[in-house]
């Protein structure tokens, strides 16, 4: 290999089309399709007693109105429970269209199909649904009280209770010299990608095939769900993920009701049908995350070493639990962070509420876990009068302690074992990057000038690259193009670029000759999906393995053609040649021709390849038993368990006590996701993650009122940050390879968001001395807290 693409800041392949406005997002096609719109519940909890569409009949262009009564077969059943768990004793999932009862504002009640969206909404507006409102359960306090029920047959609103433990935390705390108890909470937010969800279906009656385009994070998952629910053979369903305008977790849910209803209607009507989520719908029907309350008991010794930790927490799963209890399991298992724990018990209760269903949003339970652990660390430091960095340093797992086994079960059902890392090294670097050691003087000087500065620090470990597998297909065409397909999807992470970099290195070609397709079941039918910071690890390794197999085949074929030993060959610049003799070589395009005994002279490569044709052995079949035609290979990567990335954030903030505002003066990130495939892209992921973290810490929340109305369901009222609210982080990378995969890489997609609430809470607390036990914190809340402290003297 003469050029190494892995590790380079390669410009993205995707951008050529995206900056021209030539991307293909869901709503960029199907202009003549019928449009669907949904009648959604205005009540958080109600019985439906009737529906009258009479007035809609007068809307010119109306095609159909569907309710639960119209749904056939499995489409009339509750949607699937994606991830069952033995402790999920009361799983409840929604119907594709509400059946007699609605459980959150925004639940789909009726589907309207019309000639265009304007008309569909006209008709939807004229449909009258009769409701008998029921008492709504909104928020964790109401859910825990249990006197009102979301689902009549779920006592106490409890979906699941789970405990995991390491050692004996209660006994350790009982004998610990110091014990603290804390209550910590985090509120709801949502992914809110700039492009909402969308589904576009076409039924081909002649071929008996369904083509479904959906803005999803898992095309194979949607395909399996749709095929099963609509009673179609898997092979008759093609699911294609177009360009996706962001996902951040919410688009991994599958199937959303619309993903089965739209193709069903398309088949029934024999017409293309498309539904494009509007922003209000996104707020009230795309999933949310983050709402949790936690109670912590921690025992520690005089130097801050944690002896025992007990955490009980309550997770708001919303109206339904299609994703099972994955989120609280992640909180429970990622809460320990980079610290040595000998005695840890965690118990969580997952509770239903009459609000939008909760599934992972970037970070997925980790921001809450990190908030709990890091706030606990800060409190221990404060109780002992020790430095916050010092207490952390005492508890960090050392670089020589890997693999570090927590003897617990991670989100993927595999053992929670950290594979590698250098946590003390990260701590040193983040302290340096943010100016930790000099800050006391800076703070004092600022205070003297009437300014309230504070510094905070937060550390995390993130399980990434969860299995079970991803696969890839690499095909060198006779024109020299390298076609790569992997089944997982892309939402802006630059997969076309980084996978091309990996393949370019493995095959000795230019990344510009590598064409990557993701999320198209026609090209690669086996895949899991893009979530849990797994794409680079899973598909990255899969494309590497598939490319290696192609390389081996290319070398074998070229060796025969060149009459050279395979070991003497290398590939560079798209040519297989004898090492040290670049003139004695054969281009991969011609190797591709040679790989297929059928050589019609469709191309000059095929004509030229004849030159290298070796004399055929009359006793050997043109395609021997152990061979296949074509210069292509398929391979899968399946890890024994997750690989654990890590990082630390530190921030300096300035609080204006008059206004309660928080300004971020410095933001430092050190990050270890193993070797970086493309540092530019990793940094972009961190920038975006930090922005979402800041949003979750200071701005964004779901403002539900007591009746379960979402009062801020628009970008006017939901405070997504603009340019002016987001810091420019300083970033340093550490690269500790994972021993678990061929490329040594770890995931990077979610890292940026995880510690931000913990970090900013610590910095605000340091600035003004008010305890930050729940996030987000708004200026009025902070102002009230400061005023209360002042009043208390």
């Amino acid at each position: 290999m003469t050029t190494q693409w892995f590790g380079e800041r390669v410009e993205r392949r995707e951008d050529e089309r995206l900056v021209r406005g030539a991307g293909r997002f869901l709503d960029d096609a199907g202009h003549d399709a019928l449009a669907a719109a949904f009648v959604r519940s205005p009540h958080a909890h109600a019985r439906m007693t009737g529906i009258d569409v009479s007035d809609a009949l007068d809307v010119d262009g109306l095609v159909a109105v569907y309710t639960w009564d119209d749904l056939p077969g499995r489409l009339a059943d509750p949607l699937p429970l994606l991830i069952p768990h033995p402790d999920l004793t009361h799983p409840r999932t929604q119907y594709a269209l509400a059946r007699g009862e609605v459980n959150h504002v925004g639940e789909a009640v009726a589907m309207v199909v019309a000639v265009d969206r304007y008309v569909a909404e006209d008709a939807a507006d004229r449909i009258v649904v009769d409701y008998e409102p029921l008492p709504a359960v909104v928020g964790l306090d109401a859910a825990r009280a249990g006197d009102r029920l979301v689902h009549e047959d779920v006592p106490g609103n409890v979906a699941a209770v789970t405990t995991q433990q390491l050692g004996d935390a209660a006994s350790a705390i009982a004998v610990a010299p110091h014990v603290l108890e804390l209550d910590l909470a985090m509120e709801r937010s949502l992914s809110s990608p700039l492009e909402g969800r969308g589904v576009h279906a076409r039924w081909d009656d002649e071929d008996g095939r369904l083509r479904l385009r959906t803005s999803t994070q898992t095309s194979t998952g949607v395909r399996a769900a749709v095929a099963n629910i609509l009673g179609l053979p898997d092979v008759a369903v093609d699911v294609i993920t177009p360009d996706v305008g962001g996902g951040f977790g919410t688009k991994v849910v599958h199937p959303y009701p619309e993903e089965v209803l739209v193709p069903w209607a398309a088949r029934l009507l024999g017409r293309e049908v498309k539904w494009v989520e509007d922003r209000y719908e996104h707020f009230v029907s795309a999933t949310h995350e983050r709402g949790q309350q936690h109670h912590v008991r921690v025992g520690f010794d005089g130097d801050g070493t944690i002896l025992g930790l007990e955490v009980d927490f309550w997770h708001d799963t919303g109206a339904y639990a299609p994703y099972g209890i994955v989120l609280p399991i992640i909180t429970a298992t990622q809460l320990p962070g980079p610290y040595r724990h000998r005695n840890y018990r965690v118990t969580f209760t997952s509770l239903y509420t009459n609000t939008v269903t909760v599934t992972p949003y970037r970070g997925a339970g980790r921001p809450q876990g990190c908030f709990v652990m890091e706030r606990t660390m800060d409190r221990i430091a404060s109780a002992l009068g020790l430095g916050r960095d010092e207490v952390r340093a005492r508890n960090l797992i050392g670089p020589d302690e890997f693999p570090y086994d927590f003897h617990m079960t991670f989100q993927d059902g595999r053992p929670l074992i950290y594979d590698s890392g250098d946590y003390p090294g990260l701590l040193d670097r983040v302290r340096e990057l943010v100016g930790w050691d000099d800050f006391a003087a800076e703070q004092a000087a600022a205070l003297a000038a009437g300014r309230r500065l504070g510094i905070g620090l937060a550390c995390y470990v993130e399980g990434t690259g969860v299995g079970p597998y991803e696969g890839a297909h690499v095909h060198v065409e006779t024109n020299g193009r390298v076609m790569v397909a992997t089944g997982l999807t892309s939402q802006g992470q630059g997969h076309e670029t980084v996978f091309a970099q990996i393949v370019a290195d493995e095959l000795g070609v230019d990344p510009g000759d590598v064409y990557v397709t993701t999320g198209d079941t026609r090209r690669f039918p086996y895949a899991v999906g893009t979530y849990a910071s797994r794409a680079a690890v899973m598909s990255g390794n899969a494309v590497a393995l598939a490319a290696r197999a192609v390389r081996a085949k290319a070398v074998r074929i070229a060796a025969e053609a060149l009459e050279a030993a395979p070991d003497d060959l290398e590939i560079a610049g798209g040519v297989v040649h004898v090492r040290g003799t670049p003139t004695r070589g054969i281009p991969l395009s011609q190797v591709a021709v040679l790989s297929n005994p059928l050589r019609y002279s469709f191309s000059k490569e095929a004509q030229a390849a004849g030159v290298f044709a070796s004399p055929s052995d009359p006793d050997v079949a043109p395609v021997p038993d152990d061979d296949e035609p074509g210069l292509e290979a398929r391979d899968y990567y399946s890890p024994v368990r997750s690989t654990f990335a890590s990082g630390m954030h530190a921030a300096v903030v300035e609080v204006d006590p008059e206004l309660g505002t928080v300004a971020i003066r410095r933001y430092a990130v050190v990050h270890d996701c193993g070797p970086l495939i493309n540092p530019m892209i990793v940094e972009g992921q961190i920038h975006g993650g930090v922005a979402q973290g800041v949003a979750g810490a200071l701005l964004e929340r779901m403002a539900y009122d007591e009746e379960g109305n979402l009062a801020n369901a628009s970008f006017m009222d939901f405070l997504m940050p603009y340019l002016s609210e987001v810091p420019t982080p300083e970033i340093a990378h550490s690269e500790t390879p994972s021993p678990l995969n061929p490329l040594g890489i770890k995931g990077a997609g979610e890292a940026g968001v995880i510690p931000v609430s913990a970090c900013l809470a610590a910095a605000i607390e340091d600035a003004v001395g008010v305890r930050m036990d729940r996030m987000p914190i708004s200026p009025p809340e902070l102002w009230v807290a400061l005023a209360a402290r002042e009043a208390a003297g």
Partner: protein
Amino acid sequence: MRLSTSFPVTAPPAVLTALADPAQVAAALPGCRSVEAGANGRLVVVLDLSVASVSGLWSGTVTPVDADTVCIAGSGAPGNVDLTARADGDRTRLTVEGEVSGPLATAGTAVLTAAVRRLADTLLANLAAGSAPSASPHSTARPDAAPDAGAAIRQRGPAGAVAAAAVVAGAVVVVRWRRRRSAR
């Protein structure tokens, strides 16, 4: 798809009289091309149907089963209909049940149900308008247009407001009262 609906109907004496006249019924039935009396009280109905975006020529028969019930069966471009209709509660309610298939069935149960009711209401209101000076709010036929109310509705009637099933349900009302009248 299965259709099952029950709704109140209003048929004052003047309408009952009008129902005795197939020509008036044909004129009052939106989209109707013809209503012809067949053997044993059977009616043959031909009409242009339009429900939501489904439209086309449809023909069917209405066959008495007993004093309160008729079977309606027919087909055409809009689809196939196989329904029974029953007058309940001393002629104050009409109950329509059965199967609808083809394009009509794709419009959804709620649409067909509403269209059936709309049609029955329109038919009765048109008949009332044709036989009395006060027009029903649903009627688009002026009293002076009564002789060709059907044509007027075809030209000016609300688009997408008439279902095959509803037509047949309307016809049921006709048959129901015709039979009662002939039984006297």
